[in-house]
């Protein structure tokens, strides 16, 4: 498992370095990352019911979590917990800690393992697959704590859980902050 993770981490990092984030190939690579990571996670599939988690339309989300989805500018502000991409993030926003919504602060390390969510972008009306990664190796940033949990699941469904420390497999496993990286469009 570890060897597979490391191999995949190496190949996906190398892909990220060789491609433009804005380019189509970059987007495709990220989407592949998300879809390939999911089957790697050690979740119990033997007896799992056939129905996969059915994402609800984000418009149907009622009062949610410690911070409710808001309206207006906050939905487009990566420094706000109400930013659309943060629909299931639980931790400190890296955008308030020297990073951005999809990059780690200087001197920290990206977590190679992660969990995947689906967020609705009100700007274009589409649902996106996002990967929630932690940034690791320094102690808690402490800024902009954000706790939203749309479609989040308990620890036994680890691939959809935001409670566990996703820095756990890093050589320096202290948790610093969290990002939300667009992987691609969610299946309709």
């Amino acid at each position, binding site marked *: *498992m*570890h060897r597979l993770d490391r191999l995949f981490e190496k190949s996906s990092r190398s892909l990220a370095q060789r491609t433009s984030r804005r380019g189509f190939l970059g987007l495709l690579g990220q989407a592949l990352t998300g879809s390939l990571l999911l089957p790697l*996670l*050690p*979740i*119990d*599939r*033997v*007896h*799992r*019911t056939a*129905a*996969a*988690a*059915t994402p*609800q339309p984000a418009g*149907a*989300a*009622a*009062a*949610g*979590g*410690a911070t409710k989805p808001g309206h207006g500018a906050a939905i487009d502000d990566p420094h706000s917990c109400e930013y659309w991409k943060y*629909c*299931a993030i*639980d931790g400190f926003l890296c955008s308030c800690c020297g990073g951005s919504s999809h990059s780690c602060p200087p001197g920290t390390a990206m977590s190679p*393992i992660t969990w995947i969510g689906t967020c609705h972008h009100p700007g274009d009306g589409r649902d996106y697959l996002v990967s929630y990664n932690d940034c690791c*190796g*320094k*102690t*808690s940033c*402490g800024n902009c*704590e954000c*706790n*939203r*949990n*749309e*479609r*989040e*699941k*308990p*620890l*036994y*469904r*680890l691939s959809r859980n935001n*409670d*566990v*420390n996703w820095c*756990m*497999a890093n050589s*320096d*496993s*202290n*948790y610093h902050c969290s990002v939300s990286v667009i992987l691609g469009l969610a299946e309709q």
Partner: protein
Amino acid sequence: MRSYQSRAAWLALLACGCATAAEPLQPEQFTVETLPPRSPHWVYIVDDAFSNEIDARVRLFDGDSYRHLGQIDAGFSPGVTLSPDGTTAAVVTTYFARGGHGARTDVVEFTATATLELSAEIVLPPKHAQAPPSYFNLAYSSDGRFLYVAYITPAMSFGVLDPVNRKVLGEIDTAGCALVIASGGNRVSSLCDSGRLLTVTLDDQGLEASRALSDVFFDADRDPVFVQGVPTDTGYAFLSFLGQVHEVDFSGPQPVIHPPWSLLSPAEQGHWRPGGAQVAAIHRRLGRLYVPMHRGGEGSHKAGGTEIWVFDLGTHRRIARWPLKPLRFGPAIAVQVSQDAAPVLFAAAENAEVAVFDALTGRLRHVEKHLGETPWFFMNP
């Protein structure tokens, strides 16, 4: 006017004279306090110190005197449990060699509850589940012979320890099922994504003797159960996101799952939900279940309760609703109830206030401001 001035002058003289005539303060003796005898109204509060996560701690608080009695250090993302006889608190945690960074050491540390002094430790493989506190991150067998540690790397397994001889005995793979629900002298159950319980039975050496899966009792897609099980007389009650109560009897060789019942009337379904970090508490002898409830929907399962609902476990009927807003407290994200005949109910709020209620009437007795930073889990002594 003159009479007033003269009276004031006399009073000032008198006060001055008294002060000089009083005995000087005695030298003090610098000592270490000892704990009074254990009270059922004490509570251990696990504070994850989330903004400074390497410095979690367990605070011992008295629900009668409202005093902070002492502290156990708890490192990074700890799990905490008490030995069956209550004499030892065990904390599984991670320390980094250079404070916020450096080599990771996972360890179980043992503290004598009578003195709050560290008494022993067992160093572990660096695998302990760095997840919010529950009864199932770390758990003793009923006879205290084994201690089980939940591992997530992210592969899921658990460690079997010998707390008496301070040894790691082994590791048992749980095939994607999470956490350690200890029962009897040699059984460990874990919650599975499939909605089942995996139960591993150990032999005398702490090695796996057999394993079995229960029937499906919840649907992780439609209505998952919280992992924060609540102790009952014979096992644990698991609440679901939508307000179902699944009581599981762990007293026999395999768990027996009772038919679920709902916290909600048909009119309340879809509107009210349980939620938070410690989602319910049970007074076992009185058969009362206390649940912080909120109006919510998809994704609100970590929201605290704006009311505490009280249920009779025998009849499944709600017997009280205690709104918190009129008390200027809450929402409540964690609850615990003492197990004595005059019980107190503890509730923690997101702003780190801890309220103490009379658990029979709901009368608010006290609100302690800023009891740590993130009090997420209470344990009875």
